[in-house]
């Protein structure tokens, strides 16, 4: 539809020294935060102080430990069922990152394949695939996802499938655009002249040259998927309880906004930090690998 649309244009190439230092600071910050959050999620069973599902009704709605009624054994407080918020956030990270990574991988596979086919074959294949892309861009993806998940049942697998099915277009568009120019390059006609078949041509000669934008889009999409997953959870159609997810915690906290601010604040902070870190990394990748890329 809007073929000329990029989501954010790349910066004009910065003056060498000054900005490169700032960029790498951002990247290091993003990477550090991401490693910490990822590590905490992986090690949650080892480092979480409590079982995330354990309800201690005598200690309901305790504030974080630095507040007057706070308890030292619950650093970030407890929720309305007396469950430890820190432990739930640690465990919730497993879902957020796990689902996000799986959904990105799947949508990348679908989008890259279709984008390669569209860009490489051109003509009717291209026209057809691009119209399908337009269809998916036009449909409000959150509503589609909710409708599908509700119909099929909110299991972990369904959530991942739906997220991938509604986001693959991002990959397809960028890969197609890239392949359109790559296929005109000499090494491709050379490889074709040597008698390579289409599949080999695509996988050995075209795909490796389109890898940069794929990596960048995958990173930025990961950030998006994390928000997406928690949005579905928030609306009640994500991975189901008792598995703790950041979105569910926010949704629970919503009813206590007036009386217990920490319920919604900390899981939200976890989402924001994760997304921020992934975005920083993605921006840096884009600026370093291909400054002219508009993703």
């Amino acid at each position: 539809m809007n073929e000329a649309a990029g989501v954010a244009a790349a910066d004009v190439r910065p003056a060498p020294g000054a900005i490169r230092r700032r960029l790498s600071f951002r990247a290091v910050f993003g990477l550090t935060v991401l490693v910490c959050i990822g590590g905490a999620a992986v090690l949650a069973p080892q480092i979480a102080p409590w079982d995330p599902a354990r309800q201690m009704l005598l200690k309901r709605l305790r504030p974080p430990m630095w507040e007057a009624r706070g308890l030292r054994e619950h650093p970030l407080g407890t929720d309305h069922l007396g469950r430890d918020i820190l432990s739930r956030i640690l465990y919730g990270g497993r879902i957020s990152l796990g689902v996000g990574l799986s959904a990105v991988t799947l949508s990348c596979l679908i989008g890259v394949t279709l984008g390669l086919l569209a860009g490489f074959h051109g003509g009717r294949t291209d026209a057809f695939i691009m119209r399908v892309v337009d269809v998916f861009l036009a449909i409000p993806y959150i509503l589609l996802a909710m409708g599908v998940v509700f119909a099929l049942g909110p299991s972990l697998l369904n959530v991942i499938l739906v997220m991938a099915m509604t986001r693959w277009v991002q990959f397809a568009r960028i890969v197609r655009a890239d392949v359109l120019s790559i296929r005109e390059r000499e090494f491709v006609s050379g490889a074709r002249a040597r008698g390579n078949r289409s599949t080999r041509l695509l996988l050995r000669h075209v795909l490796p040259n389109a890898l940069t934008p794929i990596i960048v889009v995958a990173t930025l999409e990961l950030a998006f998927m994390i928000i997406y997953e928690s949005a579905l959870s928030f609306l009640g159609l994500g991975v189901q309880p008792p598995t703790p997810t950041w979105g569910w915690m926010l949704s629970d906290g919503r009813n206590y906004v007036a009386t217990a601010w920490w319920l919604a604040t900390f899981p939200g902070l976890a989402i924001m930090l994760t997304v921020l870190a992934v975005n920083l990394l993605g921006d840096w990748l884009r600026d370093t690998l291909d400054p002219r890329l508009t993703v």
Partner: protein
Amino acid sequence: MFPYLLRRLGQSVLVLLGVSVIVFGLLHLTGDPTRLLLPLEAREEDVRQLRALLGLDDPLWVQYVRFLSRAVRGDFGVSFKHQVPALTLIFQTLPATLELTAAGLALALVVAVPAGIVAALRRNSLIDAVCSVGVLLGQAMPVYWLGLLLILVFAVKLGWLPAAGRDGLASLVLPAFALGAFSMARIARMARSGMLEVLAQDYVRTARAVGVRTFLVTYKYALKNAAIPLVTIVGLEFGVLLGGAVITETIFAWPGVGRLAVDAIFSRDYPLVQAIVAMLATLFVLINLVMDMVYTYLDPRIVFVRSRR
């Protein structure tokens, strides 16, 4: 110009056809629509009645053609829950959603465009740094969390603005800001990089060299050209906002289409869900069609580049 517009119109029709297939498929996802439409404990007789009523025993393509021919006439069936034609419900709630999206988009543009331009003109200054931190936070903050924080601070703690409902201008402020924040960040980023790019162009340098005043160079020469990509973004952003409205409306109890849709999904009111998805998609396609026309008007080169493909 004209052949391009005609082709573009044809594409839009194709896209809407595609949308209709998906919307139709939504009901048939589980194989048997009655299982989706009726509660699990429904009696066998009710199931049979519904099957006959909806013509579910016909071949799938017959059902699709029937669905499409009705949909084109605006007939998406009657909402199970409200017992009113689905389209009527949408038209009742659409104004509230459009009001919210327009306010969100307007707020985003009013803040983001000047911010982006100033950041580009004063590159690497304190303002630029503040803007880029704002952009990073705006892009990382999920709308439902931002909404809750806004309610916490401005409605609960300070008591300045209402936390929910649609009652006058004051009630629009928080939801519009929550909804617009993400777009604000993206538009500011676009405006900044677009402006930087234009400022580095030869004609800007030439204008400066021959002594055109800085003010004129910035606002007449540079800004006009930097605005072109923004027009497309506004079209796409509108779609993002319509999607975001689903969540924003849920948080702020805003009586719009989004909340209606969430409600419809949970009450198995799939005719209504289908109608809403179809209408929002149509709206998105139309807006982008208009935006593309504006775009070709602003930048005539587009037609050539596009029709060559």
